[in-house]
């Protein structure tokens, strides 16, 4: 597949797309818990990023963090638009278990799903930003408008709760 060249951008949009598409989708799914909505948000996030690619400023952060900021806004807008805030109250039965399709460990995955469901929505988003987006604490802090150490504290708290629930 040949992607259009993006000479004006300070980064390679093609490379960003290739390395981030699945992660953006996973992040959006984590927030929305709806595969179709996650796909819509993923497509919208990449389209917005493509149209704004000339405005990306590498001095203000990585392209990946910038992309996930766009995806976050798109996902939150989708949540507002669809009045589906209730979906953030995690319901393990809302989606088919991908693990079952992929032949993973059903018990382990059920435990993880239950642990995620026990998290606060904001904590669940922090987990998604850390596990799916792979953002550093500084980037998460930038994204949420908090300090790096504060972001680290919040991430640590959410992960600790997740670990305890999984134990």
């Amino acid at each position, binding site marked *: 597949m040949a992607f259009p060249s993006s000479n004006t951008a300070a980064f390679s949009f093609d490379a960003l797309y290739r390395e981030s598409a699945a992660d953006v989708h996973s992040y959006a799914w984590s927030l929305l818990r709806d595969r179709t909505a996650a796909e819509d948000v*993923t497509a919208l996030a990449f389209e917005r990023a493509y149209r704004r690619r000339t405005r990306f400023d590498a001095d203000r952060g990585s392209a990946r963090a910038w992309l996930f900021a766009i995806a976050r806004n798109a996902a939150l807008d989708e949540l507002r638009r669809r009045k589906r805030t209730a979906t953030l109250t995690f319901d393990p039965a809302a989606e088919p278990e991908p693990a079952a399709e992929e032949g993973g460990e059903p018990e382990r995955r059920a435990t993880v799903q239950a642990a995620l469901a026990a998290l606060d929505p904001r904590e669940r988003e922090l987990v998604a930003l850390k596990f799916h987006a792979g953002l550093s604490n500084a980037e998460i802090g930038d994204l949420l*408008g908090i*300090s790096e150490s504060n972001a680290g504290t919040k991430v640590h708290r959410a992960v600790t709760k997740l670990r305890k629930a999984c134990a």
Partner: protein
Amino acid sequence: MSRHHDPTDTLDPAAAGELAALEAALAGDAADPEWAALVAAVRDEAPAPRPRFQAALDDRVAGGFPRARPAWLRVPARRVLPALAVASTLVIGGVVLSTGTLDGNGTDRPFEAGAMGDASSADSASEVAPAPPAAAPPAPTPPAANEVQRRSSAPTSAASGAASAPPPAVPRTLDPSVPRTLNRKVERTTSLGLTTDAKGLQDAADGVVRATQDMDGVVESSQVDSSPSGGEATFVLRVPTARLDDALKRFGELADVARLSQGSEDITGSFVSAQDRLSDARAERKALLAALGKATTPRSIASLRARIRGNRTEIARLEGDLRGLRRRTSLARVDVSLSARGRAADPDAGGAWGPGDAARDALRVLEVLAGVALVAGAVLVPLALLGGGAALAGSGLRRRRREAALGAG
């Protein structure tokens, strides 16, 4: 995105150690299998993009996210064309109807016919007023007036309007008692405003008088007030109507024309009335003289003589009226006002456009530009502040709503 730094906000060393282990596991370099299992479990929990969606998104990215055509552009032409045809027909019909209405209201064409047509033509005048009123004498725009207007250095809009508009030669309401075959008697009046510099005021005033005399006209009144800083002069002139255009041309050569307005008044009714009354008086005189020849008694003779004296006075008065009316038609009234700009003391005044004038003009331009910028700033700055504030408020509100959407669960 803004980062809020808080120096007192430090991460606990134990927490930092666990986060470091997590980062290692996320990077695929976990020393503790528990962290690696947790990362794998959480990551596997989210479904992968469906192949169909992935392929469609790949195509959109490859195509540079082509924009969809607006809905109104996607309407088939066969649906749009009839609507366009109807709209075009309505527009054309409206234009035709409005044009017909304008042509039929009798306000424009008759005016042109009366004002610009041959004044001696009773037929053309009958178009102006088909009923008893007869043709009006001509009052075409004097060529000299046009020439004068062209020479005007800085005519005001009102002046240009007055100069360009044809003189209302034909009064709208004509005396129905006037026979339509009679030549119209029209009195023409002109008001001319001239400007010159202070030094040239007296020369221009002398030129006005001289030009009037050259045209066999009469200076009915004049007043010249001059001072080193300016002045003005006013004249009431009578110029032969036949030479009015030449006179205006001469006046226009004396100074800059700032204003020119022309008018005319149909006095045919007054003229015919005076003629009729004079004829009646003369017929009465004849009858009185005949009666005096037949009178026998001293009393009747004295009475007739007294009536004849009164009749003679009446005839003299009517003849005077008639002469006055003839004079009004043969001599046009021209009111000339001559004003001097107050630049007599200016050493640069009166000469060609020089560096001083350029500096003044440049300063004036800068003043105007500064004024425009000030007015624009007075309007735009508050608007920009309001817009910026609204944008900030909107951004903050949007951010809060997004966060609220996340936290509502």
